[in-house]
C-alpha cells in the first residue's frame, strides 16, 4: 500500500508561558497565543478500503467502529432484558426460559450493558470521536495503538458472544461473578461459559488500556495552541477523568479475572474455601471469597463513575449549548468531576455491606459514600442554575438533558439511602437496588447518550436527525423508563428479592403480580420504541435535512473544522488557535449570541467576556 506522510515537520521554537512573558510579555497584542511546543503530528493516510475503513488509524472512524460494535452488544443486552422481564411478568409463559437460562440472561445483560455497552460507547465511541476534535489535535497521539485497541475490543465482544454457543451456555453467576458459585458446577455455564467471560474481560481490559493511554496523552500532551486545561469543554474533562479512573481500576478487574481463571482451570484456591459438594469434599481450601468481592468492587465502583463522568461532562455541554448560556460554575464543575473521580477509589465496599466483611468497614465506607454525594449534588445544582432564566431551546437534545437530570436526581437520592449501612441491609438484594442503579447508571447515562447522538449526528454525517421522531422517541423512553423503574422502588420496599427466577406462591406474588406485569409491558414498549431511534438514524443518513456548518451555533472546536464532516487530520492546513472557553453564549455587547473558541479577542472588543 502506498504511504504518504505530512512532510511539514518544521521545527518550531519551543517556548513556555513563563519564557513568553519574559521575552515578549511587553507586547500589547491581545490576540497573542504562544507558539507551538511540539512539532506537527506525523499521520499515516490510508488509501485502500481496508486501511480507510477496516484497519483504520483515524480516531473518528475508530470512534464510529466502537459506537456500532457497542450498540450491537447493547441490542443483545436489550433483548436479554426483554426475556427476563417476560419471565418475571408472566412466569412460564415462554417455555424455553428455564431458571438456568434466566440466570444466564441476567448475567450477560448486566455485563454487556455496563462494560461492553456503556463503557465502550462513552470512552471508545464518544471519546475517540470527540477528544482529538475538541482539544484541537489532528488525531489521537498513537493512531496505530488506537486501531489495535478497537480490534482487541472487537475480539473481546466476539469471545463474549461465543459463550452463547458453547456447551453449557454463558455463565449464569450474576454480573458480579462472585466465587465460589461462579465456577462450581451448580451454577449454569460454570464450565466453558465462565472461562470465556473471564478471557473476554481480560481482552477488554488490555484493549481498553491501549485506547485509554491514547485519550489521556492526547488530552494531556497534544492540545492545540491556547487550549489550557481550564478551557477544555466539560465533555473532555468527563472523558479524561473517566479514562484515568479506568486506567487505575481495570487492573483490579484484570487481577481478579486472572485469579479466578486459575481457580477454575488449575484448581488453585485464591477465592475458594473448603467446599463440600453433594457429600464430596472438593480439592479447594483456604481461599477467601470476600477477597474477590473487594477486588471486584475496587474496580466496580470506579466503573460506575467511568460510565457516569462522561455523561456528566457531555450533558453539561449539551445543556449549555441548547440553553444558550454559559455553564454555571465551570471551575466548580471541573473540580467536582476530579473530586468524584478521586473519591471513587475510597468507597468500593458500600456494595458489600451484607457480604460478611469486617463490620467496622461500614463506618468508613458509609462516610466516604456520603462525602462523594457532595460534589455530585453540586453538579446537579449547577445544571439547574444553568437552566435558570436561560434561553432554552426545547428540542430533542434538551429534552434528553432534562430527562437526565430528573432520572439522575432520582437515582442519586436512592443512592444516599443505600449508602447507609442500616438502610442498606434490609434493602439490599431487593428490587430497590435494581431500581436505584438502573435509574442512576442505566437510564441517566442512556439519556445523555441519546441526547449526544441527536447533538453530534449532524457533525458525523452532515445531516440532522428528524426532530418529530426524536420527540416521540424521547417521550416513549422517558415515560416508559419511569414506568419500569419507579414501581420497582415499591417492590423493593415490600421486600421482593432480586435475582429470583420466580416467586411461586410466596406472599409477594399476590401483591406484586399486577405491578410485575405492568413493568414487563412497559419494558417491551420502551425496548421497541428504541427502534424509532434506529429507524431515525438510518433514514436520516440519506434523507435528513443537510446540517451545514455548526447547526447548533456551538462554540467548541469540533464544529469549527474546515470540512463538515471533518476529514482525516481534522483541521486542514493549520491547527486552530484557541482564545477562550467554549461557553461564551449571550455575552453582553457581542453581536451574535455565541463566540466560538477560535474567535480572537480583537474581533469581539465590545463584548464583556469572562476571562478564561
Amino acid at each position, binding site marked *: 500500500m502506498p504511504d504518504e506522510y505530512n512532510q511539514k515537520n518544521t521545527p518550531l521554537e519551543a517556548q513556555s508561558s513563563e519564557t513568553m512573558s519574559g521575552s515578549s510579555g511587553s507586547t500589547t497584542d491581545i490576540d497573542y497565543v504562544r507558539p507551538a511546543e511540539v512539532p506537527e503530528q506525523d499521520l499515516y493516510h490510508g488509501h485502500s478500503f481496508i486501511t480507510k475503513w477496516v484497519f483504520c488509524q483515524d480516531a473518528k472512524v475508530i470512534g464510529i467502529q466502537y459506537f456500532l460494535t457497542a450498540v450491537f452488544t447493547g441490542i443483545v443486552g436489550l433483548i436479554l432484558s426483554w426475556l427476563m422481564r417476560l419471565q418475571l411478568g408472566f412466569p412460564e409463559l415462554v417455555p424455553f426460559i428455564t431458571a438456568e437460562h434466566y440466570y444466564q440472561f441476567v448475567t450477560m445483560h448486566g455485563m454487556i450493558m455496563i462494560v461492553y455497552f456503556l463503557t465502550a460507547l462513552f470512552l471508545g465511541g464518544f471519546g475517540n470521536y470527540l477528544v482529538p476534535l475538541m482539544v484541537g489535535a489532528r488525531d489521537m497521539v498513537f493512531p496505530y495503538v488506537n486501531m489495535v485497541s478497537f480490534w482487541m475490543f472487537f475480539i473481546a465482544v466476539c469471545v463474549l458472544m461465543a459463550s452463547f454457543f458453547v456447551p453449557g451456555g454463558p455463565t449464569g453467576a450474576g454480573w458480579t461473578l462472585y466465587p465460589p458459585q461462579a465456577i462450581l458446577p451448580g451454577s449454569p455455564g460454570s464450565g466453558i461459559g465462565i472461562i470465556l467471560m473471564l478471557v473476554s474481560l481480560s481482552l477488554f481490559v488490555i484493549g481498553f488500556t491501549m485506547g485509554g493511554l491514547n485519550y489521556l496523552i492526547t488530552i494531556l500532551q*497534544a492540545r492545540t495552541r491556547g487550549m489550557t486545561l481550564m478551557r477544555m469543554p466539560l465533555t473532555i474533562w468527563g472523558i479524561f477523568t473517566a479514562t484515568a479512573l479506568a486506567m487505575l481500576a481495570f487492573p483490579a478487574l484484570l487481577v481478579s479475572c486472572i485469579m479466578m481463571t486459575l481457580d477454575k482451570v488449575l484448581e488453585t484456591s485464591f477465592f475458594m474455601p473448603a467446599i463440600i459438594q453433594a457429600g464430596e469434599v472438593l480439592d479447594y481450601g483456604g481461599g477467601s471469597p470476600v477477597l474477590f468481592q473487594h477486588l471486584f468492587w475496587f474496580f466496580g465502583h470506579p466503573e460506575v463513575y467511568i460510565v457516569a463522568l462522561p455523561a456528566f461532562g457531555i450533558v453539561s455541554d449539551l445543556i449549555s449549548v441548547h440553553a444558550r448560556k454559559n455553564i454555571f460554575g465551570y471551575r466548580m464543575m471541573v473540580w467536582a468531576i476530579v473530586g468524584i473521580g478521586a473519591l471513587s477509589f475510597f468507597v468500593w465496599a458500600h456494595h458489600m455491606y451484607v457480604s460478611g466483611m469486617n463490620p467496622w468497614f461500614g463506618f468508613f465506607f458509609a462516610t466516604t459514600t456520603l462525602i462523594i454525594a457532595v460534589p455530585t449534588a453540586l453538579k446537579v445544582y449547577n445544571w439547574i442554575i444553568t437552566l435558570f432564566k436561560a434561553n432554552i431551546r426545547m428540542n430533542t437534545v434538551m429534552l434528553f438533558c432534562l430527562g437526565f437530570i430528573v432520572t439522575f436526581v432520582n437515582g442519586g437520592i436512592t443512592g444516599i439511602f443505600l449508602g447507609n449501612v442500616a438502610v442498606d441491609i434490609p434493602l439490599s438484594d431487593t428490587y430497590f437496588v435494581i431500581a436505584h442503579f438502573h435509574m442512576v447508571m442505566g437510564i441517566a447515562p442512556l439519556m445523555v447518550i441519546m441526547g449526544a447522538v441527536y447533538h453530534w449526528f449532524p457533525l458525523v454525517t452532515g445531516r440532522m436527525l428528524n426532530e418529530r421522531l426524536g420527540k416521540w422517541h424521547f417521550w416513549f423512553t422517558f415515560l416508559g423508563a419511569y414506568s419500569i423503574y419507579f414501581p420497582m422502588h415499591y417492590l423493593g420496599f415490600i421486600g421482593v428479592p432480586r435475582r429470583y427466577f420466580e416467586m411461586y406462591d410466596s406472599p409477594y406474588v399476590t401483591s406484586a403480580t399486577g405491578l410485575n406485569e405492568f413493568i414487563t409491558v412497559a419494558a417491551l414498549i420502551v425496548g421497541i420504541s428504541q427502534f424509532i431511534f434506529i429507524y431515525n438514524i438510518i433514514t436520516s443518513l440519506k434523507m435528513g435535512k443537510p446540517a451545514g456548518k455548526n447547526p447548533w451555533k456551538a462554540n467548541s472546536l469540533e464544529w469549527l473544522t474546515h470540512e463538515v464532516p471533518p476529514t482525516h487530520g481534522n483541521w486542514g492546513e493549520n491547527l486552530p488557535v484557541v482564545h477562550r472557553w467554549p461557553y461564551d453564549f449571550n455575552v453582553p455587547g457581542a453581536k451574535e449570541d455565541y463566540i466560538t473558541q477560535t474567535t480572537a479577542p480583537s474581533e469581539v472588543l465590545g463584548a464583556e467576556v469572562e476571562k478564561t
Partner: protein
Amino acid sequence: MSDHTLDKLPGGYKGMAADMSSDQTAFKGVQWGKTMMWIFLLSDTFIFSCFLISYMKGRASTVVDWPNTSEVFSLHVGDVPVPLLLIAIMTFVLITSSGTMALAVKYGYERNRKMCAWLILATAIGGLTFVGMQAFEWSKLIHEGVRPWENPFGAKQFGSFFFMITGFHGTHVSIGVIFLFIFARKTFRGDFDTGKRGFFTTMKSDYVAIEILGLYWHFVDLVWVFIFAFFYLW
C-alpha cells in the same frame, strides 16, 4: 521542547501550577511516548499492587502455616543449605541489567550509538539470565512437589501465589527481553540516527524510544524489589 528552555521554567510546586495551567502540554518537555509509558507503568503498578495485596490477604488469613521461605528457596552449596541463594543471585543480575540499561539511555542521548547498542545487548543478556534462573527455580520447586493447587510445605496458597506472581513478573521480563533484543538490533543498524520508520506503526524511530524501553525495564526491576521483599524475605 529543549532542555535549554525547560531550565527557564519555574521549578517545584510553582512550576507545577504553571505547567498545569498552561496550554498544549501538561508535562513540559516530556514526549508523547514517554508520557504513555509512565501512565502505563502507573496502571501496571496497580496490577502488581493488586496481586501483592491479594497475596497479603491470602497469606494473612490462611489457617494453615505458611512455609518458611528461606528454607524452601535455599540451595545446597556442597552440603550446606544457603538460604535464598538463587534469589539473591537473581536480584543481583536484575540490578546489574538495570544499571546497564540506565547507562544505555545515557549513551543514547549522547548519540554514542555503539556504546548504547552494546549496553542494551548486555541488558538483554542479563534479562535472559534472569528468566533462565527463574525457569530453574520453577522446575526445582515443581520437582519438590509444589504445584499451583497444592504445596507439601504448608498452605496451598503458597504455591498458587508463587507461580502466579513470579509468573506474571517473569512474563514482563520476557517481553522486556524480546524488546531489548529488537532495540539492540535497531541501534546497531542505526535506526535511531536515521529516523527509520517503524514496521508496524510507520512512525519515525527516535532515541527517546530507548529511554521509554529503559523506563519499562527499570519498572520490572522495581517490581522485583517488592516481590523480593514481600514474597521471599517476609
